[in-house]
């Protein structure tokens, strides 16, 4: 009874994860701008990856509780992979948006761009150069 309930939860997680990953692909194709494409391609894949990895973790937990010790390997390794995705994906998106703005790509249809006239600090500057 309980294992069938866990199966239903696994199917729901799989459906949600695939839905958000396909939304990421559609958003990459349809959005008009680098920044909106970055929004679609990073947030949706991170959110979908949480659900897909969560379904694998639930599968391993079910195997582990029902007596197969190999299930613990699935849980721990997939948990580490999920932590790696959650750490690296937003950081890379932030670096990409910053690089896109500094390389001169303007947002399409933006009303205000607050970073436009701000003096940008170079990464190679020393502390003495600011004084």
């Amino acid at each position, binding site marked *: 009874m309980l*294992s069938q309930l866990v199966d239903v939860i696994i*199917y729901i997680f*799989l459906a949600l*994860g*695939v839905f958000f*990953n*396909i939304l*990421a*692909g*559609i958003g*990459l*194709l349809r959005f008009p701008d*680098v920044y909106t*494409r*970055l929004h679609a*391609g*990073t947030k949706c*894949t*991170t959110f*979908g*990856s949480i659900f*897909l*990895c969560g379904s*694998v973790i639930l*599968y391993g937990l*079910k*195997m582990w509780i*029902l007596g*197969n010790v190999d299930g613990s*390997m*699935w849980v721990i*390794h*997939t948990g*580490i*992979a999920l932590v*790696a*995705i959650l750490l*690296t*994906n937003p*950081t*890379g*998106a932030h*670096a*990409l948006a*910053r*690089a*896109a703005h*500094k*390389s001169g*790509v303007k947002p399409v249809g933006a009303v205000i761009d607050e970073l436009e006239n701000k003096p940008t600090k*170079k*990464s*190679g500057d020393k502390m003495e150069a600011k004084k």
Partner: protein
Amino acid sequence: MNFFSIPDIYLVILGLLFLSIIMAIIRVIKGPTAPDRIVGLDTINTIVIVSMIIFGLAAGSVIYIDVAIVYAFLSFISTLFIAKYLEGGEF
């Protein structure tokens, strides 16, 4: 209930994930500027990591998930270096 059978539903999930990868590849090919292409590559990297995890469960071996962890960190480093190159910084 048989808990040791290979879940076939995960192979269907893999096919749907490849559909998303194909849409990102179209964006990489026809992207107008260089940051568009890099955004497409970043999306492809994340979906490939998840596909490795799913395929590891479908094939029944844990080594794919270890490869996925290493691939996550390597793709993160490559994305940071490409962003640094686009920004015009010094290495």
